[in-house]
C-alpha cells in the first residue's frame, strides 16, 4: 500500500552533484526519518534538469515547485514548511530582476522556449529505474519496430523525419544506415559515440547520465535497421557516472529480456558493451574511435573506405552520436511527420546545447532548430551577467567559429551557421561579454587543438603549431605586419590538407575571429594594445597619484617589490620589473590602481633597444 504523496526530484547531474546535491539527499533521508515521514515522500535522483547555474536544484511534485541553490541547512525548513504544512519556501524559489517569483518549474522562463525531445526524461525520471523509463513510453518504439516493421521501413521513417547527425557534421542519419543496410556482411556493428571532448560541452554526458535507457533503445532500433547484433558505447573515462548508468541500463534490459536473444519474440538478437576512452579529443573522430575500440592507437585513417563499408574489425559499422540516438525512440513514438514539423527546411527537430560563459542561465537546454541566437542567448540563457554587453558567441567548440552581435538574428541550423563561419558542432555554446579578448580566445582554442592533434598528418601537427606560435607572438606584443595574412594562409592550408575533422576544422576559431574582429588583431600588432586588458604583455598597471593615500599596502604585497614611494610622494610602479600579477589592484583600499590598455612606453623602449642589439649580433 502506497502512502506516497510527494515526489521529491533532486537533480543529480554532475553539476548539481559537485554543488552538493548528494549531501542534500542524505539530509532529506535523515530529516524524514526523524519526523516519521519517510513513507510519505519519494526521494528520486534524476539526471540533469538543465539550469546548472542555479544548482543544486530540485522539483517537488505534485505541485511542481522549483527550488534553486538549496543547501543542506535548508532541508529542515523545506520538510517543516513545505512537506508538513504545505507552505512552499518562497526564499528558495527563482526570482527575476523585477522580483517576480516563479512557483513552479513550468513558469521558469528558462524552460519556456525549450522543446524537449532527447532530453524529455532528463530531470524527470530516475535514470536508474527502468520502470520509470517504461512509464514514459520507453521500449514501446523498439517493440513496435521489431514486431511490425522491416529494417527498410525503419530506415524510411528516419529518412522522412530528416534526422541529421548531432555530433557536429550534420550528416543525414538515414544515409549512413542505408549504406550499412545495403552492405552484405556476416557481422555488422553499431557504435554510440559518447566521446564528447569540446571544452564547455556536456550534452552527451547529461543524456547518458539522465536517460540511459533511451540511448540503449535508440541503439537497438538502429541495430535492427542495419542488421547488427552487437553494439558498443564509446564513452570517455572522465564520465564515470555515465558509464555506470549505461552499464546498469544494459544489465536491467538484459534481465527483463529486452536485450539478448529474440527480443519481443522477433528474430532480432542484440548485445552491447561499454568501452571507455582515455580522453583523447581525436577519438571523437569515427575512424580514430573505431581503432581505439579495436585496441589500437586512436589515430584517424584516410576515408574511403568509410566505416559503413569497412568499419570495426573490417565490418560495416555505423557510428552515431549520443544525441542522434536519443532522438530515435521519440521519432517512432510520435511519428516522422511530427519530428519534421519542427525546425527549418534543411535542419529538422531540436538540438541540445550546453550554454556556458558570461550568461545568467548556464546549463543544458533543448530548443527547436531555427531558433535565433538572440532567443537562445537572451530568452533561454537569460542574457548577460553583471550588466555587461554581449560581444561574441563561440559555437561548436574548438572546431567552430565565433559569431557577433550582427548575427544575433541568425537562425540556428546547420547551413546558416556554416555560411557564417561557425558550425552547429556538437552543441557547446560559449557566450562572451565585452571583457573577452578575441585574439586570446583564438589562442586558447588553438592551444587545445595543438595538444589534441594526434600527430599523424603533418598539416595538422606542424601547421597548427605554427599558427599557435604566431598567436603567442601577437598576444605577447611581438606581432608584426603580415601576421594576420600568414594566419589566414596557414589556416586555409591546414583546413584543406588535414586528414580528419580535427585538423580540417581546427583553424575555424582563428579564421572566424579574424573575419569578424580583425581590428583587434591589428590593435595587438600595430598599437601593442589589448583593449580588453586580457593579454598581460599588452596592458599595464598604473597608480593614480590623486587617489593614492600612500598607505603602502600595494608595495608590501608586490611579489617583485617593484612598487616604491612614501606617504608624501605617493606610490609608483616600476614598469620594467612588473609581472602583472594584479595584487596591487586587489589590495588597494581606495581603488587607485587601474589596468590601462597598451604596453607601457618604457617597456616598448626597452624591447626596441633589445631588438636592436639582437639584430646587431645577427649582422
Amino acid at each position: 500500500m502506497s502512502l506516497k504523496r510527494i515526489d521529491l526530484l533532486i537533480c543529480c547531474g554532475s553539476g548539481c552533484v559537485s554543488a552538493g546535491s548528494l549531501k542534500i539527499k542524505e539530509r532529506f533521508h535523515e530529516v524524514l526519518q526523524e519526523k516519521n515521514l519517510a513513507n510519505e515522500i519519494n526521494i528520486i535522483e534524476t539526471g540533469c534538469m538543465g539550469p546548472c547555474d542555479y544548482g543544486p536544484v530540485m522539483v517537488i511534485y505534485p505541485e511542481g515547485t522549483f527550488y534553486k541553490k538549496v543547501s543542506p541547512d535548508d532541508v529542515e525548513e523545506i520538510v517543516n514548511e513545505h512537506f508538513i504544512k504545505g507552505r512552499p519556501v518562497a526564499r528558495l524559489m527563482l526570482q527575476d530582476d523585477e522580483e517576480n517569483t516563479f512557483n513552479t518549474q513550468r513558469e521558469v522562463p528558462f524552460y519556456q522556449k525549450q522543446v524537449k525531445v532527447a532530453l524529455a526524461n532528463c530531470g524527470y525520471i530516475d535514470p536508474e529505474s527502468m520502470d520509470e523509463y517504461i512509464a514514459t513510453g520507453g521500449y514501446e518504439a523498439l517493440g513496435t519496430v521489431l514486431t511490425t516493421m522491416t529494417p527498410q521501413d525503419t530506415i524510411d521513417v528516419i529518412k522522412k523525419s530528416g534526422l541529421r547527425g548531432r555530433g557536429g557534421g550534420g550528416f543525414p542519419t538515414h544515409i549512413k544506415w542505408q549504406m550499412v543496410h545495403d552492405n552484405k556482411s556476416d557481422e555488422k556493428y553499431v557504435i554510440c559515440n559518447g566521446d564528447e571532448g569540446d571544452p564547455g560541452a556536456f550534452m552527451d554526458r547529461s543524456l547518458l547520465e539522465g536517460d540511459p535507457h533511451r540511448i540503449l533503445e535508440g541503439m537497438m532500433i538502429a541495430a535492427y535497421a542495419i542488421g547488427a547484433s552487437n553494439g558498443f558505447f564509446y564513452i570517455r573515462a572522465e564520465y564515470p557516472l555515465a558509464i555506470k548508468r549505461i552499464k546498469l541500463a544494459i544489465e536491467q534490459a538484459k534481465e527483463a529480456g529486452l536485450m539478448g536473444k529474440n527480443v519481443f519474440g522477433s528474430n532480432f538478437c542484440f548485445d552491447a558493451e561499454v568501452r571507455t576512452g582515455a580522453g583523447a579529443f581525436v577519438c571523437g573522430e569515427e575512424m580514430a574511435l573505431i581503432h581505439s575500440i579495436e585496441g589500437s592507437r586512436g589515430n584517424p585513417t584516410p576515408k574511403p573506405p568509410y566505416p559503413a563499408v569497412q568499419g570495426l574489425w573490417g565490418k560495416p559499422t555505423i557510428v552515431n552520436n549520443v544525441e542522434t540516438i536519443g532522438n530515435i525512440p521519440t521519432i517512432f513514438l510520435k511519428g516522422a511527420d511530427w519530428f519534421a514539423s519542427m525546425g527549418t527546411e534543411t535542419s529538422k527537430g531540436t538540438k541540445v546545447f550546453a550554454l556556458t560563459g558570461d550568461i545568467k542561465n548556464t546549463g543544458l537546454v533543448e530548443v527547436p532548430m531555427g531558433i535565433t541566437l538572440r532567443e537562445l542567448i537572451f530568452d533561454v540563457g537569460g542574457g548577460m551577467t553583471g550588466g555587461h554587453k554581449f560581444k561574441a558567441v563561440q559555437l561548436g567548440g574548438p572546431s567552430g567559429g565565433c559569431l557577433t552581435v550582427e548575427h544575433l538574428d541568425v537562425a540556428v541550423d546547420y547551413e546558416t551557421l556554416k555560411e557564417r563561419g561557425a558550425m552547429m558542432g556538437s552543441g557547446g555554446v560559449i557566450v562572451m561579454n565585452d571583457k573577452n579578448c578575441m585574439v586570446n580566445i583564438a589562442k586558447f582554442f588553438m592551444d587545445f587543438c595543438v595538444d589534441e592533434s594526434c600527430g599523424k598528418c603533418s598539416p595538422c601537427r606542424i601547421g597548427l603549431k605554427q599558427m599557435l606560435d604566431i598567436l603567442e607572438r601577437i598576444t605577447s606584443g611581438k606581432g608584426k605586419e603580415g601576421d594576420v595574412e600568414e594566419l589566414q594562409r596557414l589556416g586555409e592550408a591546414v583546413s584543406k590538407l588535414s586528414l580528419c575533422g580535427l585538423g580540417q576544422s581546427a583553424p575555424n576559431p582563428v579564421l572566424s575571429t579574424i573575419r569578424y574582429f580583425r581590428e583587434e588583431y591589428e590593435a595587438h600588432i600595430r598599437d601593442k594594445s589589448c583593449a580588453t586588458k586580457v593579454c598581460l604583455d599588452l596592458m599595464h598597471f598604473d597608480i593614480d597619484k590623486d587617489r593614492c593615500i600612500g598607505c603602502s599596502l600595494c608595495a608590501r604585497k608586490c611579489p617583485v617589490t617593484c612598487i616604491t614611494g612614501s606617504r608624501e610622494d605617493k606610490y609608483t610602479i616600476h614598469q620594467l620589473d612588473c609581472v602583472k600579477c594584479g595584487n596591487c589592484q586587489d589590495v588597494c583600499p581606495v581603488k587607485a590602481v587601474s589596468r590601462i590598455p597598451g604596453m607601457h612606453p618604457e617597456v616598448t623602449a626597452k624591447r626596441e633597444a633589445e631588438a636592436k642589439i639582437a639584430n646587431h649580433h645577427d649582422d
Partner: protein
Amino acid sequence: MKTLADLKKIREKAQEEMKLRGGNVRIKIVVGMGTSGIAMGAREVMKTFLEEIANRNLTDVLVTQTGEKGLSSMEPVVDLIEEGKPKVTYGNMTPDKVKKVVVEHIVNGRTVSDYVVATGN
C-alpha cells in the same frame, strides 16, 4: 518480457507509481495544513485519505496540501477539486468523515452536503 502487452502491463504499473508527477488526475484533494489545521488533526485526516485511496486502488486521485485557509474554526479543512466542476470545501473533518467522503464523493460522485462548508472559488 516477450510481447508489447507485457510491456504495457509494466508501463501501467510504473505510471501509477509516477502519478504524482502529473498525468491522469481526476480529483485533487487539498488538505489545509496550517498550524491550526495540524492542531485539529489535519495530519490524521490526510493520512486517512492516503490510506483509503491506496486501499481502493484509486489511481486518478491526488492528495496534496496547502497552508492556512482562514477557516480556523472549521479545521481541519479539505478542498476537493475536480476538473470542470466548482471546488467543494469540507470542514471539521475527522478520519471517519474522510472515509465517507472517499466513498460518496470520490467513488460515487455525490457531494456529502452535511460536511460542506463552502463551494465554488
